């Protein structure tokens, strides 16, 4: 039996296990609630801001100036979120501000959420020795990749559900936001989330295969996320700029870039991290005692 078949058998069984367990529902609820909270906060602030602009437009003799000031404020905010790249700002023009902000905020907590989903994918099996039922039946690499595929499918489904909710909210509250624009943007944002999430899921796989204790693998996973965040912060200093390239979040902004070259560099960055972490996981699982 080829590895692909083994991976699909393990992936399917793992996915069924996760869907039957309450954990998938809890995680969806957690992710959904957090996104909803951000959505409500950002939505209400945005609404109040828009209302204030509308009031000023009604009261002022020069509504065009106010509208322009509003557009400038929006651009400033987007510039802050996406490193001021004019091409991205232009591309995001059609998308309601609330969607962009919520997406950006969810990217901040998505790695931690990924860690929560998958920290025990292998360490749980190692701690209970239940992996021993599998290693005499299939390749160790099939176990690793089968579980990774299942986690990825669950994660991407959850992200799609939440993203869909956000876009539907945006559609309902913005008359200018057409169905076509919504569909295109949803696909783009989801694709960006996929690339982003898979790199972090690979990191979670690595942490999970390294340790027999699930709690320890979660702590190390969160510590690694903190280290990446630190690299990103330290790398803002001009003399230490190079350090930023070692942090996955360096490549996040251009995931929504309209130019193919910029998008491809970001994609390659995340793919590189995913290959690095998954490759390391493979080396560990093929040589470790279970």
């Amino acid at each position, binding site marked *: 039996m080829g590895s692909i078949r*083994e991976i699909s058998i393990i992936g399917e069984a793992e996915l069924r*296990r996760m869907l039957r367990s309450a954990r998938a529902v809890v995680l969806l609820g957690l992710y959904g609630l957090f996104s909803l909270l951000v959505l409500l906060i950002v939505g209400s602030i945005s609404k109040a801001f828009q209302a204030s602009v509308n009031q000023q437009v009604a009261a002022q003799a020069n509504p065009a100036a106010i509208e322009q000031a509003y557009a400038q404020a929006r651009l400033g905010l987007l510039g802050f979120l996406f490193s001021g790249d004019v091409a991205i700002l232009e591309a995001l023009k059609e998308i309601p501000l609330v969607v962009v902000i919520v997406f950006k905020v969810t990217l901040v907590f998505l790695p931690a959420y990924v860690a929560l989903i998958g920290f025990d994918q292998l360490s749980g099996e190692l701690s209970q020795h239940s992996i021993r039922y*599998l290693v*005499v*039946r*299939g*390749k160790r690499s099939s176990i690793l990749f089968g579980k990774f595929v299942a986690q990825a499918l669950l994660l991407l489904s959850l992200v799609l559900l939440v993203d869909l909710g956000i876009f539907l909210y945006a559609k309902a509250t913005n008359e200018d936001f057409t169905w076509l624009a919504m569909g295109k943007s949803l696909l783009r944002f989801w694709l960006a989330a996929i690339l982003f999430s898979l790199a972090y899921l690979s990191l979670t796989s690595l942490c999970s295969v390294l340790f027999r204790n699930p709690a320890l693998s979660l702590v190390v996973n969160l510590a690694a996320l903190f280290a990446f965040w630190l690299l990103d912060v330290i790398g803002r200093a001009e003399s230490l700029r190079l350090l930023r390239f070692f942090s996955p979040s360096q490549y996040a902004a251009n995931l929504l870039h309209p130019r193919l070259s910029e998008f491809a560099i970001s994609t390659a960055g995340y793919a590189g991290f995913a290959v690095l972490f998954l490759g390391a996981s493979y080396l560990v699982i*093929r040589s*470790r005692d279970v």
Partner: protein
Amino acid sequence: MDHALELREVVKRFGPNIAVNRVSLTVERGQCYGLIGPNGAGKTTTFSLMCGYLFPNQGEIRILGVTPQQQGALKQKVGVLPQDAILPPWSKVGFLLHYWATLQGLENPERCAREALDLVGLAETWNTAAQALSHGMAKRVSMAQALMGDPPVVLLDEPTSGLDPRIAAQIRQLIRDLKGKQTIVVSSHNLQELEELCDAAAILDRGTLVQSGSMSDLTSIGAEFRVQIARGNVPLAELKALRGCTGASLEPSGILTVSFDRSLVAPEEIITCVVALLAAREVLILSVSRGRKLEERVLQLT
């Protein structure tokens, strides 16, 4: 004879501790082989090395010509009952067995899974969640997964520990039924069980192989017998003078141990001569047994 399993100079270290030290043994095809030893002897480590769970630091292991540590090498060749592996609690027994049978590449996974479950007398647990099983039932389900697809080699770690006597007897019967058809390796603390089931065994102590061989060699069944004396004066000098007798000793508990050279005398001849001599000297006998208990041999060696 063709080896089913072979360990050559295998060493396994955990940090500074040597769990298995230069162990070499061979198990022939169709044999039922026991791994014996006290706690910490290295039985489970040796067993785990055979299953490919652990990687040896030195030496070589071959099962049916393949290295167990090679990825996927044991597929359809070996069935394993691991001692301390917990059945995933989230799934129903039927789902788990079906999943594992599919992964194993069996032709009709559901039929194989149901047959194996039926074999251990748990057909009714197909739709039961693993977490709802008692310890004994979980052990039998684990036994069922080891037997699925009739693998040529079956490795069983403590197959009857924690089972009530009736179920333990059923499992022993199951192993007896497999004898001759499949190669079986059993690791157990229950020496009486191993003596009864196994054709050969290896005795381990503190990671080292102390002795290995056929069960009759280990228990000296072909070179020694014991007589339980009720009363009377045992003529030790006369016994030692019998043809083929190489020694005779009497323990304070009344056990007379007679050893002999098989090349000079057949067991039935010397046993009859000794019993006749004792009867002639009006020594009253309670019982006669060949060899010594495996337990005594193990206690002597470890």
